[in-house]
């Protein structure tokens, strides 16, 4: 299976939300990283065919997705960034309703809903109304509904938002197990989630995909650009203004800064190992004047 995106563009009046994005996604887990307003959600909504593009097309195995209609939605699972729910529906009832909309026969739906409730650890509360659920529990119901039709293409917009660390680990394991011969595209601000499960990362900025590659390929790009520098607290403030500081930690009276820079920022600075977060911050930084 192959999802190819060909010069996908979306304009909102004069604002360009997605700018001529082209990529090819084959089975695997793809992480979409980018700051707020980078165009991640718009891009994902166009991939789901719920938002018309200004120009460009998306093809699934050579077929243009908007012309596929129900055949495309049949292989698609989607979790929107912000989603609602019918407050009086119980978790099980809600999933059965979504299964009905996905055209899953009742007997199959019953079995699958039960399985998914166990997977997302909501079996105990399946009979409770969703209005009584916490944010994390609602998010887990959202994840379960996206998996109902056993989608070949799974698009998850901020799936780990609202999940506690234990649930995030459970979710990461679930997606890793699930991916197999499927395409999973997920966006998140939590770089460690992407680092843990994504086979490839797409870094978006101002509507464009800046970089696409595996985590190791991307971290290599940041290699040699991450420096550690120990300074006094007063100097730390100055450094924060004049350089891209990725991290700051206090060690006794001193402050250890993690600086992203193409050149050695100061005499005492030492190289340190780069991570995906470093590359993310390095790509997103506004260069100090």
């Amino acid at each position, binding site marked *: 299976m192959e999802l190819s995106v060909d010069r996908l563009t979306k304009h909102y009046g004069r604002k360009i939300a997605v700018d001529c994005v082209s990529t090819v996604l084959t089975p695997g887990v793809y992480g979409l990283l980018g700051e707020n307003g980078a165009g991640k959600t718009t891009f994902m909504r166009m991939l789901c*065919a719920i938002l018309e593009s200004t120009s460009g097309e998306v093809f699934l195995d050579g077929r243009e997705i908007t012309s596929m*209609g129900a055949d495309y939605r049949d292989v698609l699972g*989607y979790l*929107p960034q912000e*989603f609602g*729910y019918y407050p009086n529906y119980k978790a099980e009832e809600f999933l059965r309703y979504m299964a009905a*909309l996905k055209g*899953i*026969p009742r007997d199959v739906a019953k079995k699958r809903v039960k399985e998914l409730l166990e997977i997302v650890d909501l079996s105990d509360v399946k009979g409770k109304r969703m209005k009584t659920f916490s944010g994390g529990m609602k998010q887990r119901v959202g994840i379960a*509904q996206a998996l109902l039709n056993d989608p070949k293409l799974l698009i998850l917009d901020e799936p780990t938002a609202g999940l506690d660390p234990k649930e995030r680990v459970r979710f990461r394991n679930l997606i890793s197990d699930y991916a197999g011969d499927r395409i999973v595209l997920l966006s998140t601000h939590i770089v460690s989630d992407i680092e843990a499960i994504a086979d490839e990362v797409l870094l978006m900025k101002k509507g464009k995909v800046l970089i696409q590659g595996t985590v190791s390929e991307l971290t290599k790009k940041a290699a040699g650009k991450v420096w550690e520098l120990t300074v006094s607290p007063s100097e730390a403030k100055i450094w924060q203004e004049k350089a891209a500081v990725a991290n700051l930690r206090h060690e006794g009276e001193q402050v250890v800064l993690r600086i992203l820079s193409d050149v050695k920022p100061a005499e005492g600075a030492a190289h340190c190992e780069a991570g995906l977060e470093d590359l993310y911050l390095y790509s997103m930084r506004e260069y100090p004047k």
Partner: protein
Amino acid sequence: MNSRELERYLRDSFRQGEEIRAEKKAETVACCREVMSRYGDCREEERTGFWQFLSDVFRFEGFLTFSLQAGVLFLICIQLGIIEDVMHYVPAFTPLFALAVMPTLLRSQFYKMGEMEAVTRASGAEIILAKLILAGAVNLIGITVVLGLAMYRQQSGEGTGQIILYGLVPYLVCMTTILRLIRLRRKERLPVCAVATTGYCLVWGISATKMPQVYETSAVGVWMILFIAFAGFFGREIRLIIEKKREGKLYGIIG
């Protein structure tokens, strides 16, 4: 084994004698089995048809639809039992049935479920169509009861056609307005639509006393023209929904 190798096997099978061909055939079958097992179960999962879907929508939406319509019918029946000039007030009541359909049709937008529902196999058009079928069936019963009661209160068969027109025209005007707004994705105008529908009721209610000429027998022609026009507009909206459903394309307010 790739497709080229498989093709070579098949070609060789045809070139050779009867016995060898049988041997090759078995070999080919084994190869195909291996390929199939590698790709797992390729059968497509069964999906429900429209009638099963309609039954599911009835299961989940039926109670809300029926209870709202029943509530409206109850209120109208009480009013019709009280007022004197029943015939002229019928147009003020039937838009209420259209108003009662709105929560069912727009529930997904109200609860921000539109986006999630839009990416399901059932397109927005299919969901709206199923809800319209359910609501339409109940509306038909409700309007029939109202018109029957109005005729009963008239105590004569005179003006039966007029009462039917007075009941159906405002209903069709309101339903067409609602469907048109949904089709044009004018989310911000839906509250306006609810207010307008209520406004229609008031205007027709006021017209019963302030504009008696509208209800004279000589005005039946105008009512008939309005009926034909709005039945046409309503039919067009339904046809567009069916077309969108067939194409599986987006319909309605999403997100």
